[in-house]
């Protein structure tokens, strides 16, 4: 309560017990790294997409132009479709053992 507002740093960690989903907790930690990294790639991809759209429009590419780029609704729709497909590509599950036994010809589940 004593800090001036300008100095406020919000807490980044949650109070409460963190669940462990995998047999080895280091895999839980690894999944956080993977998910964060996946997110970083998506952010980078979107920045590149903004740059390309500025170039297409003949707008000089400056940091300021990137920051003030306001995507139209159609651009957002296109980006959402990309994000959706990208997520599904990255988090592709191995075929399950039971699916393999039930479909030995193809050996993979949808």
């Amino acid at each position: 309560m004593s800090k001036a507002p300008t100095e406020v740093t919000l807490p980044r960690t949650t109070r409460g017990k963190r669940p462990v989903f995998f047999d080895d907790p280091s895999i839980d930690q690894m999944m956080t790294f993977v998910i964060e990294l996946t997110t970083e790639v998506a952010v980078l991809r979107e920045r590149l997409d903004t740059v390309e759209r500025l170039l297409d429009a003949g707008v000089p590419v400056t940091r300021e132009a990137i920051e003030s780029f306001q995507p139209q609704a159609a651009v957002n729709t296109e980006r959402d479709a990309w994000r959706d497909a990208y997520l599904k590509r990255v988090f592709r599950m191995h075929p399950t053992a039971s699916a393999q036994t039930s479909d030995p010809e193809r050996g993979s589940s949808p």
Partner: protein
Amino acid sequence: MAARAEDIATPNIDELFRPTHDERARQSFVSMLRKHAIIDLRAAVRRHYESEVAPALRARGAEPATWRDIERVMEPDPLHRLYSTLRYNAQEMCYLSVQPAIERALPEMIDLARDLATHNPAGGTLRLNPQFEIPRYLHALDVHLAPGWVTAEHTEDDVAQGAVVGFGGKVFTGQHPYRKRPGVVAESIAHWIQRTRPGFTPRRILDLGTTAGKNLLPYKSAFPQSEAHGIDCGAPVLRYGHALAEHEGIAVHFSQQNAERTDFPDGHFDLIVSSFFLHEIPLKATRNVLRECHRLLSPGGLMVHMELPDASSVSEYDNFFWNWDTHNNNEPFYTNYREQDPLRLCEEAGFLPADAFKLTIPDAASFGEERYARFLKGELPAPPHGSGGWFIFGAERRG
């Protein structure tokens, strides 16, 4: 609403939130990550359970009978683990992705909220209690994995958690088919009341656990003559909610109170509502809140809570799905709450059994009027809770 707000030109506290290009990209991606987990993977896990896991167990004569059995079987399942880790991480990232922009905006946000709390241009009020005792169950851990949740104050007159929970919530629901618009629950309940009780005109409305009033404001629009009140324990979310309502030009009275025991007089309200509230408090507190509702309702008054469907209202598989949050989303009271029969809870609070109800109503925004009429005639069921419908329970107060 927006046009009117422009006329009176009250600044919008939400507009002080100015994420950079990359922060915005991150937020959009987290919304999609969350959708991938809660919609796509949730469905995939269910299909996997129904078409592979359960039949294999059935063949061995070991099909799970209860949701706990299902949980035991599914916990080591690789697909369920992927779903769980994505859901958990996405939840954390909702808040992490908005915090930097909030830190930058905070001084301006605080100034604006302070100013609006002094001048109340829309005629609402904000009543905080510096001596307020926050119930232990509310600050012992961070509900929804939101660091600081709704009560933490980082500086004087702080609104930060109002912004964190508000903008984090927008990332959370950003790609959810039925939750994109704020206030959909209140809109759906108000619509249901108007269609089932024509002529019901509440003089005073109270929303319990209102946070920043997202599901309170639509009641004021549906019942314009009414006086609308919202209470919560968290000062930062109330300050934020007050600033938002004043900008919208909607007069709402926010006060910092414990819903277990408020300072309103007996029979003060004709309509008492809540949403996403009761499952977050211990059962003892829920019982106190319902008794308090009974005390506060006027004769002929109506109480409606939007809640998670209770265990007996859904399948064992659905119970397994819903109870995930208990341990994985810092909601320790969730499973126990869901095991109660809401009708029984109403009765224990003093309502007559014949005056209590529980049902799933359609989401007003997506269902369509024609289908709604058929729902009212009993010809068409509402979609399941969270997938186009909302589970509600409550009671009327006689005499």
